[in-house]
Every structure is written in structure tokens, then in C-alpha cells.
């Protein structure tokens, strides 16, 4: 359970995020959509205690994230390339993250073996540093690294961007599996409405830092989102 209360972030006079209340129950696959500057990454950064809230707080499984660091063992994230260590190979990177999360090499090997299809022979055994991989392959490595160490909360910012179609479809299966079968809370942001409605049980639309829609996904959701973002949204 992730509880957000009175959370706001202001830079100078510019309020970039303002969420009165948002509760994400355990095991939910939660989607965050919104145009550029809507506050998606800001929210995730606050959740990871990478920036300080101006007001309010987030409580992640009974731990207030800006007060204690105890949320770290069960929370993992891939936000952008700054979560990769460019001068390591993919394997070295996985093992390093594994060590930070208390996993030995064998544990990590077992986990990444499950993602053989997802990697499509482009990640493991490449003898290449992460910095020399293509953007899409970097992303694959980053996403899988976020699954190491049995996290209960996984945060993925724009996971579908830069991925090829095959990998996008595989990633959707992975995310669904995490939430439905393993009871992991997955937070995903995306610009791709189709993917996010496919994957997430619940979708929240942010606009200029505020929640403007909070939808339980149904077959009508995609239409509603498309209407919203094309500006033809009818106020009921």
C-alpha cells in the first residue's frame, strides 16, 4: 500500500505537482499518464526520495519515504539511463545490483534466465559495456535489473519507449505477470495509451501536476483516454 497525502512540489512559483490524496493498494498495476510536464517523473522521484516534497509525504508500506530509508529493500525502480552504470557489462550490472539487494550470483542467474526471451540474445554474453548498447537494449537491461531482489514495489518510468514491437509485447506480459500472479505493486508511466490500458488495472491522468482522472480500467477506458487527450472530452 502506497499512500500519498497533501503532496506538492514547487519550484519557485511553479507548482509542478499537487496531489491531495492517492492510495495505491498492494498488488495493483498502476498506470500514470499525462503529457510532458504533467508531473509523472516528479511523482516517481518523490516516491524514491530523490527530491524533497514541498508539502505532504508519501508512505510506502508504513514507511514515510523522506524520513526513513527502510523502504529501499523492497522498492526498486528504473527511471532513466542514470540508473545504469555505463562502464559495466549487463551481467556485471545485474550482479552489482544483486549484491546491493542481498542476492548472490546464483540467485541473479536464476532470475535473469527467466528473461531470455525478453533479452532476445542482445543483452547477455555481448562483451559490451552498457554505454555501448542501443537505447532499447539499455532499457531492457534497466528494467530487468529493477526486478532483482524480490521487490514488492516496482517503479518503471516510460518502460515502453524505445523498445521494439516484439519487446513491448513481451514487457506487457512481464508486467501483468508481476502484478497478477506475484502480487507485486507495479507503477508504470507511459505516453502510449494503448499499452498502459492493456497492462494496468487502474489509470490516473495527471495534468499540470494534478490528478484529473482516476479510472479502473475497462474496455471503455482507452476511448475515454483518447477523448481526453485529443481535447474532445465532454464534461458529464
Amino acid at each position, binding site marked *: 500500500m502506497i499512500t500519498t497525502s497533501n503532496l506538492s512540489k514547487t519550484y519557485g512559483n511553479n507548482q509542478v505537482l499537487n496531489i491531495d490524496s492517492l492510495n495505491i493498494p498492494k498488488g495493483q498495476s498502476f498506470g500514470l499518464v499525462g503529457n510532458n510536464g504533467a508531473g509523472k517523473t516528479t511523482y516517481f522521484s518523490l516516491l524514491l*526520495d530523490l527530491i524533497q516534497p514541498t508539502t505532504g509525504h508519501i508512505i510506502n508500506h508504513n514507511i514515510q519515504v523522506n524520513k526513513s530509508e527502510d523502504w529501499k*529493500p523492497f522498492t526498486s525502480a528504473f527511471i532513466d539511463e542514470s*540508473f545504469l552504470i555505463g*562502464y559495466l557489462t549487463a551481467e556485471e550490472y545485474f550482479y552489482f545490483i544483486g549484491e546491493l539487494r*542481498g542476492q548472490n550470483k546464483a540467485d541473479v542467474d536464476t532470475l535473469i534466465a527467466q528473461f531470455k526471451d525478453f533479452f532476445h540474445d542482445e543483452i547477455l554474453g555481448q*562483451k559490451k559495456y552498457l554505454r555501448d548498447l542501443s537505447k532499447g537494449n539499455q532499457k531492457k537491461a534497466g528494467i530487468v535489473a529493477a526486478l532483482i531482489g524480490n521487490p514488492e514495489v516496482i517503479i518503471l518510468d516510460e518502460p515502453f519507449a524505445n523498445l521494439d514491437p516484439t519487446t513491448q509485447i513481451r514487457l506487457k506480459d512481464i508486467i501483468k505477470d508481476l502484478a497478477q500472479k506475484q502480487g507485486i505493486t507495479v507503477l508504470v508511466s507511459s505516453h502510449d495509451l494503448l499499452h498502459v490500458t492493456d497492462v494496468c488495472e487502474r489509470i490516473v491522468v495527471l495534468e499540470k501536476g494534478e490528478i484529473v482522472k482516476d479510472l479502473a480500467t475497462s474496455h471503455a477506458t482507452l476511448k475515454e483516454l483518447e477523448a481526453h487527450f485529443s481535447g474532445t472530452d465532454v464534461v458529464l
Partner: protein
Amino acid sequence: MGFMALWLMVTFFGAGLGMYPMLKKFFPNQNPQLVFNSFLFFWVLGDLVFRFFLQKLPVMIVKPLLVLPISRNKIVNYVLGKSALSFFNFLPLFVIVPFGVTLIIEGYPIISVIVWMLALIIIVLILNFLNFIIESFSAESELSFLPVILVVSSLFGLNYFNILPLNKMLGNGLNAISETPVLISIPILVLVGVYFVNFKLLRQKLFLDSGLKKDIKEVSTSNLEWTRNFGNIAPFMQLDLKLIWRNKRTKTSIWMLAIGLLYGLFFYTQPTYLAMPWFYVFIGVFSTGIFLINFGQFIPAWDSSYYKLLMSQNIKYEDYLKSKFTLMALSILILFVLGIPYVFFGWKILLAHFAAAIYNVGINTHVILLGGAFNRKKIDLNQKAAFNYQGTGAVQWLIGIPLLILPMGIFAVLYFFIGFEIACLILAILGVIGIVFHQKLMKMITAKYLESKYKMIDAFNQNN
């Protein structure tokens, strides 16, 4: 690297100022300007080697320009023009200008000195472009340093065996230019020539799949199992070692080890310095602490590109910092041991180095780690290393004072008032105190880092 550049500038400037009196002293019956000219050939050779290993054509900057409506010729001219403004071309000015000014003061004809200085600057630019020609041929060969070695050694050989007395020819040429200014047109023509060759070479290569291609090296991995002996900090130590070994910017720290180690030879071979025991400690601190200074001054900016990852992971900050501490302490130990042969110049030197090494381990490591907590400058590891000031801020300069000046000051005062041995002892005791309070100090330093966590994340996120 900031230190390195400043050190070079100061040394060159000092050499420029001292050139006239020095040449006057060693060659009392000769004209200093002519003597200087006669040695120019060796400078040319040294400069070529130096440039080859450190200077690269800034060709990557043109990528964004390629798709803009700018003609390729203009882009090539821009790259070549930019290379002329490199630090390597300014460095010789620190010798040329003060030496030239001294010559004018000493009553040499102003016009001829100015023409002579101009000729030297043109030679520097010729070397600049000549280096890129050599490099472009090196890129194609298997042993990339072969061409430069070939060129330089054959030039040296031709001169040494008097087949072609290049040394004299160059010297006489310069003498002639300062006597007959019109002759400066010859080096200018050569400059135009090498520029043109460069232009041609670069014009052909300005495509994404040739000159602008990033070369991807195959990785060779080692598991660094020995770091396991250090317990909890092992993962960070492995990361740090890979960081140092696999990035251009950090690799220079390794070469700097050699410079630091040999630094004492510059001084101890001169009786003037050998007679100044209070100066030994400075060399001791510098030569055992060169890695400490080079690597330490950019903690934690080395990890700036993935700092967000580290901060969102379940890491013990203290272990992270301890790994850096351990590396620095090890480097001090190794450098001290390798420096033991200095005992050849006297046991006092060894004693002073020993005291300096202990001081480095006990005090300077902690000081530099503490300084890192105020570090707000990002470093891009993928960029070339030499004379890259990215990440250099006021902190890097200010930290030099306690690091080098303080121990030397303490030592000098004690030396003059009490004596050499006591001064060594007290310096060593200071170091031991630091080692004894290591745990406490690390706790304090860690707290400082945690305090500035958000500021660091924010700063490392900026593209300055």
C-alpha cells in the same frame, strides 16, 4: 587534472622566466636566443609525442551540425579552427612570451623578437595539425602508436647520426627569420600546407560510419575476487576499480601514479633542493598522495552519472565511502613502498616520506572525502581525460590548501624551531591520530554526505 594543468602552466611560466638567466649561466659565451633556437628541434619532437597521446581532434562535436544547412567545408574549417584553440597550443606561450619579453628588456631589437615569437607560435600550430595527420594514419594501423614512434625516432635518428642535421637547420632557420622577417612566410606556407592536408583528410571522413563512428571495444572482464578480503565494501571496490580502469577520464589517474612516483627525482637530483629538508615533506605528500589527490578530488562526482541509482538502492553510504578510502589508503602504501629507493638520496628523505605517507592516510584521505561532500559538479566519464576541467570547481582548488600546504607548513615550522626528527614524528603522530579516529571521522563525513543528498542529486542531474 586541475592540479596537473595549473602545475604545467606554472612550470612552463617559470621556465619561460628563468630561460634567459639559465641559458646565460650554462652557455655564458653564447647568445641565449640562438641557444634556445638550437634546442628547438628537441622540443618539437617531445611536443609531437606528448600531443599524440593526449590531444585528439574534437571531431565529435560536429555531429549535430551535419544535418543543418551548413556546408561540409565550413564544418571542417570549424573543427580545425577549434583545435587551434586547444590548451596544448596555449601552453608553449607560457614559455615563449616571458622569454621573448626578457629578450626585449635585455635590448634585443623589438621587431626581430616579435617576428621570432610569431614564428614559434606558427611552429606550434604546425605541430598541432601535423599531429592530427599522424593520428589519422595511426587510426588505420594495428599498433596505433607506431606511426608517431616511427616519425619521431627517424627524425631523431637523422639528426643524431648527422645524416640530416635537422637540429641545426631548424635553429638556423629561426635565426634567419629573426634577422630577415620576410622569411616567416616559409613556416606560414608549411602551416597552410598541413592545414590543407588535414582539411582533405577530414573532409572525406565526415560521415557517421567513418570518422564519426564510435569505436566499441570488446570487454575483457576480470572478477576481482581478491576484493572479497575487504568484506562489505567489496562490491563498491570492484565498481571503483572498474570505474578507474574502464573510463578514459579516470585512466589518467593511473598514469599520474608514475608521475607522482618520479616527482622526487626532479628535486632530489638538484643539490639546491637536497639542502632544504623542510621541502622533503611536500614531495613526500605529493608523491605518495598523487592518486589520493587525483581520484579523491572528484569523489563522489565519479559516480555522478548513476548517482540516482545509488541513492534509490539499499546501500550503506559508509561502505560506499569506505571503499574509496581503502583504495586511497592502498595507493599511498604502494606508492610509499615503490618510493623507498629514494633512500639513495639520504635516509632523511625516506623518513620524511614515511611521515608524509602516514599523514596522508590519517588526515588527507579524510579531508578529501569531506571535501567531496561539497562537490556539486557532474563528470561525464566518457569524455577524454587530458585537460578536461569538467567537474572542477572551487572545492577542487580550495582542498589543495589543507592537503599540501598544511603539512608542509607544520613541518617547516617544527623543523626550524625544533628539529627534523621531531617534525617527522609530529607529522606521523597527526596521521596516527587520524587513523585512530577513522571510524568517528567516517561517521561524521557520512552524515555530511547524507545532508547534501538532494543537492548532489540535483546538481548531478544538470547538464552543465
